[in-house]
């Protein structure tokens, strides 16, 4: 399994479109699996942040000796989008659940979205991002990678094919707009 994803990742780096779909599926599945795992009792203290989750998946799926820094960035870019997808799905699920109800076992992702309030925040953010996307898709994209994926400025720049300064600026501007937008929401 490991070899496959590594190969797919390299193919994707070389420009294969089919590779992207395969890669996305593999990463999404893996991410969902890890995030959905039941927390062992001892592991309660070891909550993984989103970035760490992504790194876990990377470690599991990819033979890191065979890929270079650019492949790695691509991977994280895909993972960022998967992560966003996961979070939004999960948040939606959480919001539609009845209050009370069955005791849901704590999972990793519950640690990330521990409360309804948080879930709502995710959804709000997502909506705001949609709107941002309509004004300036590049800014929205930067947010996806930086926030959902926890990617560095460097990796983001690599994946998007723009300069680091552009990423920095977009990030600053995007945050400003989103802050303004969400502020209205929160009040």
């Amino acid at each position, binding site marked *: 399994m490991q070899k496959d994803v590594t190969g797919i990742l390299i193919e994707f780096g070389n420009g294969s479109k089919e590779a992207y779909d395969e890669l996305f599926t593999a990463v999404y599945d893996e991410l969902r699996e890890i995030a959905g795992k039941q927390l062992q009792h001892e592991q309660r203290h070891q909550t993984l942040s989103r970035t760490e989750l992504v790194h876990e998946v990377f470690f599991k799926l990819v033979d890191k000796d065979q890929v270079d820094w650019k492949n790695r960035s691509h991977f994280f870019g895909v993972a960022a989008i998967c992560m966003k997808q996961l979070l939004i799905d999960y948040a939606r699920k959480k919001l539609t659940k009845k209050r009370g109800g069955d005791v849901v076992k704590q999972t990793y992702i519950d640690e990330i979205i521990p409360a309804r309030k948080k879930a709502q925040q995710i959804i709000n953010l997502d909506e705001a991002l949609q709107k941002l996307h309509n004004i300036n898709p590049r800014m929205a994209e930067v947010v996806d990678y930086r926030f959902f994926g926890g990617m560095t400025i460097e990796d983001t720049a690599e994946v998007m*094919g723009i300069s680091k300064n552009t990423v920095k600026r977009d990030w600053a501007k995007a945050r400003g707009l989103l802050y303004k937008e969400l502020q209205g929401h929160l009040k």
Partner: protein
Amino acid sequence: MDCFIKNCRVILNEPNKRFFSLYYNTLTDVNASLYKIKDQANQNTMNVYKYWQDIEGIIDEALELEEEAQELFIKKSCSHNPDLLIEALDYYSFIKKAEDCNFLNPDFNLESDLISGPEYSADKQIRENVIGITIGPYKITEPIGEGGMGSVYLAERIDGEFDQKVAIKFLRGGFFSSYLRKRFINEKRILARLNHPNITRLLDGGITDDGTPYLTMEYVDGLPVDEYCKKKKLDVTARLKLFLQICKAVQFAHTKLVIHRDLKPQNILVTKEGQIKIMDFGIAKFLNPDAEKMLPLKTREGQFVASFKFAAPEQIRSEDPSIATDVYGLGALLYLLVTGEHPLQFDDHSISEIKSIIQNKAPVRPGRIEKNEIGPISRDLEAIILKTLNKEPEQRYSSVELMRDDIERYLNGLPVNARHSTFVYRSLKFIQRNRIALTVTFLLVLGIFSLLTYHNNQLAKERDIAHQEAEKAEQISSFFVNLFEMADPEINQGEAPTAAEMLDQGIARIDGLSGQPELQIELLQTAGNIYLTIMELERAEQILTRSYELARNTFDNENEVILHHLALFGTLQRLQGNFEEARSYNLRALDIQKNIFDESHPDIACIYSNLGLIEREQNNYTEAEEYYSKAISQHNYFEEDHHCFATVYNNMGTLKRHIGEYESSEAYYLKALEMRRNVLDYNHPHTANTLNNLSILKQNTGQYDSALQFLHEALQINKTILGNNHPAVAANLNSLGNLYWYRDDHEQASIHISDALDILKTHYDHNNTDIAISKLNLGLNLLELNQLDEAERLIKESVSIFRNQLGERHLHYAHALYNLASVLQKKGDHNQALSVLEKCLDIRKEKLPHGHWHIALAKSSIGYSLSELGENHEAEYYLEQGYEVLSNKRGDDDTFTQTARERLDAFHNKQ
């Protein structure tokens, strides 16, 4: 969808990078459609500004500027349109707000919010003017500064009872529930008990009426430790001693179960008297209301980063800090103190980037930092520092005391625990202190140590596959345990084996590792290299051929291992005098080298050095120098000492010596010597070689005392490594003999040469020319000591050996004859002497150019004997001829000329 298609077309024209975005856009648009269906009530647009296009442009430019200049720039750019200005400033303010509270903080954990938004801003500034207010018995007089955690003020006792100055620190930030207030007071009691001269006393603490916690502590007037060290220009040792003080204090706190959690220079002051004062023990946890575990959560980037520079990885992960956390902090501090730099650099990174760096990036080895003005960092000290900075808490020192112990060991020259306490390293130190034949063991160790280290690291990193690797490491370990046992005189009953013996034993064991070809190759290759070094060429060839075959079978491509073999074969061929083969091996190695590595690899220096040597041995000095220069330029690039570079410097030195550039030669030799002493162990054949070279150089320039010193050193080393009976030792002894001859110390000369002779006799048969030379030299010395019979015997023997081995027309034979004549003359047997001298003159006239001073010598000697026999007429002729040429060729001050003069004078006096 229109939007999407347009994007799509643009993107398809660009190279691979944009692929990503293409698919990203697809996904987002799918998402967008979902939303459209679900939520039609929502407006799909943001409340954006009317002048969005303009604003974006202005903001873009503004963001490129320094923070202070941004607002001004915006104002200027919008001065023509007040509405535009309002909107631009509005947007700018939101951008700043988002930044200040770290909006959309990508990495969050259980304790913090998903989106730390406007309502959760953690920055509550204390804006009240506190000067003049009273807290307990103290009145606040002036602000001292902004600490990392709050404002600090100076306060004096109001009741005037003591002239006591204290510092009052207000802790800002965080919410303080009543639960936490209780905890704070409890902790305060614990902290107040930290009574230690190097810890700032906590005097009191409490919570003001408006809920701000404060701490009263002794006022310390001092500099942060790093500034203090800089100001006092302390060297590494002095800094270490200061650091030990710090360790003691931290250790003390640990015994009271208090962990500092935030050790940084700003918290460690040094008074004028040089006393350490550590502050803010255990305070850090009071700043985050939700978790006691986290670091101060600051929103001002500057302060954030400062704390992070000393933060341990587990602190970033919000794990419980422990003693190991403080050990890490101390390590980071030590790193800073001895190198002047922080172990990890982050200035322009986001929080998540910083966290990633702390958890994943390894600090640069302290010894490798350029321009370290404080001093050089030895490997042992490096090891200590790096151990404390290990990302895994369990891998660090488990207590500050152990760390202190190691530092003290380091300061006393003892082995430190930090260096992979594998027995390999320990054995190394043991052997060094016990002076056994350590070179072989060291060479083997050197070759395999890297393997072991590699394996150990792999074990630490990889989670799976460990078993296999562990086995390998085990095998290597036991291999060496056995080898070392052999070297241990206790076990050996005092007879230290020679290098060759140990190797032979080692080889036998390598055969036993047949299941691990890679390992075998590595070990065999190393053994072959050692044989080469100690000049056991046949053995070397055997072993290397074996390992080469094994390598060819095991590896598919030409890799590093094959490369090393080729280089070794090249050396072998050169030592055997097969220059063409040697060259072709080396050139092949060079080719492969360039394919595998880029040009800046030290091994390339070795190959160039070999090629240079080949040229030099064929007297092609220019070509040789070219090769050496290439290798040297690599050293300038590489800047790291490596045995290959040392070899080049050594060889360049010899080259310069041969062409007579003595000063330059010395410089190169000394550099080579220094490097060899650093990189190799002291008792290494290469080091002996350089010392020998230096000795010869000094002889050439007439500095006999220096020459003697170097030679003695070389001899010592060779004896230790090779044993007392090795031809190389004999060569050294012979050289020593010559040196003593020049200093007219014939006794010493005789001793050494006869020792050399003894050795040579055990290796070669009696007809060997080296033996003949030794005999001759010994004979001459004995002659000076008037042991005429012995001298005669020895010289006669050498005469006959030369005649047998070299024929009757060889100059060595002539030389021996000349000296035989000297003995005979001294004994008074001038007739014999004359017949011997005639033969000598005959040969010399034939072999040497006309007018050569050796011919003159012979003539003068003939003249002398003739004069003694009363053949005055002929005697005069020969004596005068001899003297004239000698005077011309050697000058009047020369000893030979003077002897000839004396003889001539004596003759004239007799008339």
